[in-house]
């Protein structure tokens, strides 16, 4: 569905993403892993159209640079790490914006379709009761669920997530990840995400790319990539010992 060939992103002299290639197929959940500053978020920004890159990113065989912003948005939905709101929009209004790409041009699906998708997204994320609430009154977890609902309403084929539950407590983390997992069950869909928590990555992901200093260290099936040997090298520490130590407290 989505493939990147030799993606390089430079900010001035600094090379943030260095010649990375990847491939995402239907039904896959591809995890981008690696230490801070490895270039994970930048790679995602390049796909989402927010960073200038060299190389080629193809969506269904077409260069994404040739796609109009609306066309791209109907195929790829993005959920950012942190969303803040300045104005008192209602939850429904924000979720409704997910249908923006469908309201433009001749491919307009009509108002009923829009309404249906918004309703479905609100139902999926359990926001039906909050639809009229002001965004300014929501908690961080609720806020992130609203933007997840927005991206569901957008009804893309590929979902791109940048640390979607990073600053949320584990209850919300679990909610968000199980929602995404359910979403992925429908055929014709795929997920690409950055996740810091390696255990979480291993649990949810099917495939992974391990990045370090902008370079691809390993890629493939998740169990082949997130190996103790690879992780110890990239993080420069005994990762499995640390993980085991953490977990043993609960046993």
């Amino acid at each position, binding site marked *: 569905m989505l493939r990147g060939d030799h993606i390089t992103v430079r900010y001035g002299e600094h090379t943030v993403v260095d010649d990375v290639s990847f491939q995402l197929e239907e039904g896959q959940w591809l995890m981008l892993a690696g230490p801070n500053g490895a270039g994970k978020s930048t790679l995602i920004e390049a796909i*989402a159209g927010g960073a200038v890159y060299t190389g080629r990113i193809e969506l269904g065989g077409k260069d994404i640079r040739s796609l109009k912003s609306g066309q791209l948005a109907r195929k790829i939905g*993005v959920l950012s790490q942190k969303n803040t709101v*300045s104005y008192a929009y209602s939850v429904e209004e924000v979720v409704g914006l997910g249908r923006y790409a469908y309201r433009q041009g001749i491919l307009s699906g009509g108002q009923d379709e829009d309404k249906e998708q918004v309703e479905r997204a609100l139902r999926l994320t359990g926001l039906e009761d909050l639809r009229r609430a*002001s965004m300014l009154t929501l908690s961080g977890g609720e806020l992130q669920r609203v933007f997840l609902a927005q991206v569901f309403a957008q009804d893309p084929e590929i979902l791109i997530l940048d640390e979607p539950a990073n600053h949320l407590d584990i209850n919300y983390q679990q909610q968000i990840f199980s929602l995404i997992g359910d979403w992925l069950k429908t055929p014709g869909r795929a997920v690409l995400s950055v996740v810091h928590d390696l255990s979480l990555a291993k649990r949810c992901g099917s495939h992974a790319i391990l990045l370090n200093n902008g370079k691809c260290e390993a890629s493939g099936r998740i169990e082949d990539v997130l190996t103790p040997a690879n992780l110890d090298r990239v993080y420069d520490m005994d990762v499995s010992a640390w993980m085991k130590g953490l977990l043993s407290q609960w046993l």
Partner: protein
Amino acid sequence: MKDARNLKRERLAPATYVLLAAVLLVTMILCVCAGSVRISPGDTVTAVWNTLWGKPVPENIAKNIILNVRLPRVLCVALSGASLSLCGAAMQGLLRNPLADGSTIGVSSGASLGALIAMATGFTLPGSAYGGVMVLAMLFAFGSLVLILSLAYALDRSLATNSIILIGVIYTMFISSIISLIITFSSEHVRSLNFWTLGSFSGVNYDQVKLLCLALIICGGILLHLGDELNAFAIGEDNARHVGVNVKRVKLIVLITISVLIGVCVSISGTVSFVGLVMPHIARMLVGPNHKRLLPASLFSGAIFLLLADLTARTLMSPVELSIGVVTSLVGAVAFVIIFYRTGKAG
């Protein structure tokens, strides 16, 4: 509990428009009827009514004052108020910053510098002596916007913090020193152009009304059409791009439209500050932040506010006339502080 967080504005919106339109109409009638010279409502109505239907107007003092002085002024004030408020609302949405406005981020002073340069150098367009001033005002407004935005982006990509306001303030100071420099070094007849800093609607005529009307129909039409896009920007520029807004194109269109509108307004009436800052907030309190409702509401409330400010300026100390900028700045500065603290709490 959840009910307390709900917004009750949906039901209110249509009623609010009817109310706003009615208030605008009443305000306009009031402003045409009231002025420093007392003219009976009967004479006023006759003069306006007969002109509307092409009937001869009785030759009296009311005819000249109402039709040639008061009416064009009231129309100009209403159109400028609507334009400035609309620009403010669009800018606050686009930049996602509730303190953005032509006067706070330095666009208006840029436009007045352009107008002043056109005056000082005698720059005119063939066929229209006034066009040169207007075109330079627009170009400088756009140039200022681009400059201020690039500086602000370099500091903080989200623009949500107030660094853009700070840059705007510094830019305004910089421009005003250039303006003083030009005034110092230019011939005497530019010296009287100081009025640009406070704004004035005295002496406007129907040509200017037509121009403002045209600018507002075109630019206002474009902005009202971009309600969805501005909503997306108001939630976040990245979010806008993610839902499929052509971020660069929309931003360019909005910035050009705002520059044209502010350029026209400034070249006609000088810098009337704070209308664009305060009125969108009041409109937002009435109909919420959704630009599809907010933009028309700002349009109405901006017109009403400036009409009342001008009425105050014209009548408070009659026959002496106050500068309209004094009235709007007095009200605006207080409102600015209140908004600043309210948004501070909300954030």
